[in-house]
């Protein structure tokens, strides 16, 4: 019963984190970059939104500015990577560290800023989980439609090819570096947008919000894609799968908490989920490809023999 009571909250929070996972999907799956900026940019989104709300800014404007701030963090990582030649993973770590200081200064040196649902008109809050589910759902639908349209434009298609095959992209006149910056900006903008929603939902922005966010995002992606790839491996279905993955993740999370797992272990739980989803296909492949390799070897040797006779 307690589990069922926790469901609407789990779904609402799952939707918000699912939105963040869509941002991670763009960097990790489409651009093929493990972008660790995310841990910082989700917090930036939360901080910017909370501070603006506390200053009396309208909620929509706060959310839009949060999105913009997130996009800037992505641009920063992108420039570190493409202009200064820093490996993408390290570029993300550096931005993440920079953002810790930036976020602290946004919060005015405090580690937490409260968002009062009575003083501000919020888009969603945990006091009304059904409402939160509807609002978060609508925002996600809007984001998915925008992304769907974008990734089928001339620019969007080259963004996909940039991650999929940079050699081919350059040969076809695609500015791969610019595309990486654009992609990281969109990805982190979406991540910050989910941070802004999270701050409203929880009623606060905390400097430690978002620690380990990348891992939750990856967990949502792996859970989601394991199902959606079996249904139809196209873009929109994948995105819906990722959202579903976020929800499933939070249901598991709530379930485990109710089973009595100490909350101290929850981050480890996220890591284990990601670990399993990455390791299982690898181990399966490893086992499979040693067998296959032997076959290929014998075939290619046979071919070589045949070719040698021809040449002689």
């Amino acid at each position, binding site marked *: 019963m307690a589990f069922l009571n926790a469901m609407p909250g789990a779904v609402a929070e799952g939707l918000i984190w699912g939105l963040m996972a869509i941002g991670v999907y763009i960097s990790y799956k489409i651009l093929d970059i493990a972008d660790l900026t995310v841990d910082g940019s989700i917090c930036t989104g939360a901080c910017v939104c909370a501070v603006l709300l506390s200053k009396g800014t309208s909620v929509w404007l706060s959310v839009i500015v949060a999105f913009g701030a997130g996009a800037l963090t992505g641009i920063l990582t992108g420039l570190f990577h493409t202009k200064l030649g820093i490996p993408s993973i390290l570029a993300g770590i550096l931005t993440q560290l920079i953002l810790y200081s930036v976020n602290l200064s946004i919060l005015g040196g405090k580690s937490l800023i409260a968002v009062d649902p009575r003083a501000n008109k919020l888009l969603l809050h945990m006091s009304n989980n059904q409402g939160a589910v509807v609002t978060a759902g609508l925002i996600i639908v809007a984001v998915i439609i925008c992304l769907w349209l974008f990734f089928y*434009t*001339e*620019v969007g298609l080259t963004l996909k090819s940039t991650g*999929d*095959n940079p050699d*081919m992209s350059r*040969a076809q006149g695609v500015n*791969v570096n610019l595309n990486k910056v654009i992609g990281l900006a969109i990805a982190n903008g979406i991540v910050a947008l989910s941070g802004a929603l999270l701050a409203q939902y929880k009623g606060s922005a905390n400097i430690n919000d978002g620690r380990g966010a990348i891992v939750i995002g990856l967990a949502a992606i792996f859970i989601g894609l394991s199902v959606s790839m079996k249904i139809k491996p196209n873009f929109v279905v994948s995105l819906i799968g990722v959202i579903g993955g976020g929800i499933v993740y939070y249901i598991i999370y709530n379930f485990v908490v109710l089973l009595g797992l100490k909350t101290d272990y929850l981050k480890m739980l996220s890591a284990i989920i990601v670990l399993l989803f990455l390791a299982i296909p690898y181990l399966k492949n490893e086992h499979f490809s040693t067998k296959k390799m032997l076959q290929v070897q014998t075939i290619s040797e046979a071919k070589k023999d045949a070719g040698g006779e021809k*040449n002689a």
Partner: protein
Amino acid sequence: MLKITNLQKTFNPGTVNEKTALSGLNLTLENGDFVTVIGGNGAGKSTLLNAIAGVWKPDFGTIEIDGVDVSNMPEYKRAKFLGRVFQDPMKGTSPDMEIAENLSIAARRGTKRKLVWGIRKPEREHYKELLATLELGLESRLSTKVGLLSGGQRQAVTLLMATLRHPQLLLLDEHTAALDPKTAAKVLEITNKLVTENNLTTLMITHNMHDAIVYGNRLIMMHEGRIVVDVSGEEKKQLTINQLLGLFEKASGSELTDDKVILSQ
């Protein structure tokens, strides 16, 4: 049309791995030239093509395409002039994207890409017709992900992509070397058709001396980063493999004791 002057490139200078790949190479191509390039391992064939494509900057020398000095132009900007097919069939296409999507990206090579629909309806019809000319049955598989195609099919699609927007210069870097003999012959046949029908200026590296003689109107042979043999027209048509080996020995000053150096990679 293509004018290369005193091109030099040394990899890993000042280290034990120092390797002079191009040592003052000069080459001029006329419009419509179909040039085959042969030479042993490390002769600088691929280095030459990569230099033209702008994969890295040369140490010295200039490259002009249609009178434009492209020596300092980044790779993606030079792509405006060039169609390229790589040795590795995986390199020329985007595996996770549909055949039509790959072609549509190639159809916009050298143009400013905008926030408008990436593939238009009439385009699909056009792609269908083009794919039909390959005679590989790909015309009915526009929405298939390229990653599901065989190496030969991918190489044929890459050829279409390279020639879709009539390139000033087509660069083929041993594009049949990774294919089985039957598929290689098919891809070479498609290549010849596309090049002659569209009158494309072409540089084609091959490891097969027979192909080098049969195809194209001019043949160059490279050795130690330089062009040592350059034959064209009637002289090339009459050429035999033995004569070619003789020419090489005379020009390079080194005896080619093992012809497999050239015959195979």
